[in-house]
């Protein structure tokens, strides 16, 4: 029999878009979202460097991997701000996505 991982799964609720998805234990918040083709949190570098997946956790337990201070200061971190790609849930999570892509329609000059 093929062994499959029977991980605990947590419910992730993105407050500002109303979306909900399941995230596996031990994986950062974007892994499950992207794997399921879901949206709601902008998905960028997945390394804590670019900052587009900035979130504010409203409720729930999580641990964090190293992230760039360019995008989340220590003070913000203490207020619940984080980057989704550096946040590993340890319970169900309710959050709002803070980082946003600039909408293409607002780009008047090619890239900006």
């Amino acid at each position, binding site marked *: 029999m093929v062994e499959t991982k029977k991980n605990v799964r947590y419910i992730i609720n993105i407050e500002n878009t109303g979306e909900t998805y399941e995230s596996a234990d031990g994986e950062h918040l974007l892994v499950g979202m992207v794997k399921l083709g879901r949206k709601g949190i902008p998905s960028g*570098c*997945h390394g804590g460097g*670019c900052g*587009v997946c900035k979130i504010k956790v409203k409720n729930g337990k999580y641990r964090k991997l190293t*992230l*760039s201070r*360019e995008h989340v200061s220590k003070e913000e971190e203490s207020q619940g701000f984080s980057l989704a790609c550096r946040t590993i849930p340890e319970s169900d999570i309710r959050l709002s996505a803070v980082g946003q*892509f*600039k909408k293409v329609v607002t780009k008047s000059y090619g890239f*900006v």
Partner: protein
Amino acid sequence: MGVMRIGHISIRVLDMDAALKHYENVLGLTRTHEDSEGNVYLKCWDEWDKYSLVLNESEKAGMNHIAYKVENDSDLDVFKQRIADYGVDVEEVAGGYLECTGRALKLNLPSGHEFYLYAEKEFVGKAVGVTNPDPWPDGVKGAAVHWLDHALLICELDPEKGINKVAENVKFLQDALDFYLGEQVMVGPDGDIIAAAWMFRSSTPHDIAFVGGERMGFHHCAFFLDEWNDVLKAADIMAKNRVKIDVTPQRHGITRGYTIYFFDPSGNRNETFAGLGYLAQPDMPVITWTEDELWRGIFYHTGEEAGQFTDVYT
């Protein structure tokens, strides 16, 4: 006389061990030096100078500086004068200021990016040597990239405020450092605003590139592979190693290169770039991409914007 090629890039990483696993095991660079501050220096197998990549552990990702190698030591005196005459501040730093490197000129491009010119760096040699060499060495890990090929820097662009650091960089590199413009993207109602530029000194389509964005930043550094099959294999290696791929193998319209974009563990974007593209020469006419076809230029097959491509950078 003149700038020969990209010499090295110094980038910031959030976790040195994770970065080394990526650049050594996935891309196949080898460690050649570590300085007293713990910065690690690496080279690719087909390069002969001591290093082309510097990893600096930091609490922020991004680029510290980029350096280009000039042909003769005396070129530095000429460029120092020309850069000053152009109106850009330039400082000469002594040998050793950059590890294992001779005296250098230190300046900031008009976009703000820290930039060096140097003439000498400690010699190590290619992994295959120079006497009756094999075409490739044994034992190189991962994608076995040949050399650091180019970098793309994001430059502030806000035409309504009259800010265009892409244009300023292009003019500076043309006038003061004799770079040539290979390709450009022109935007705006009259198509007269340069929003991106690919510039060369070697015979490949670009040794440095600039794309306009909201703030100064580091978009990617690219490592060379021979051809399309190497690109496919590199993508396999990335998938095996669970590297976050940004853009799967495909062709650029601009430069005609075969590409993969992906991220290092700190979110700095890398590229493996394959193919000659075309022979770039000083008298080659400049290639222009218009705003309505600019995404065809970047991703030739789909011709579509990938939203994360220009908005995600460190």
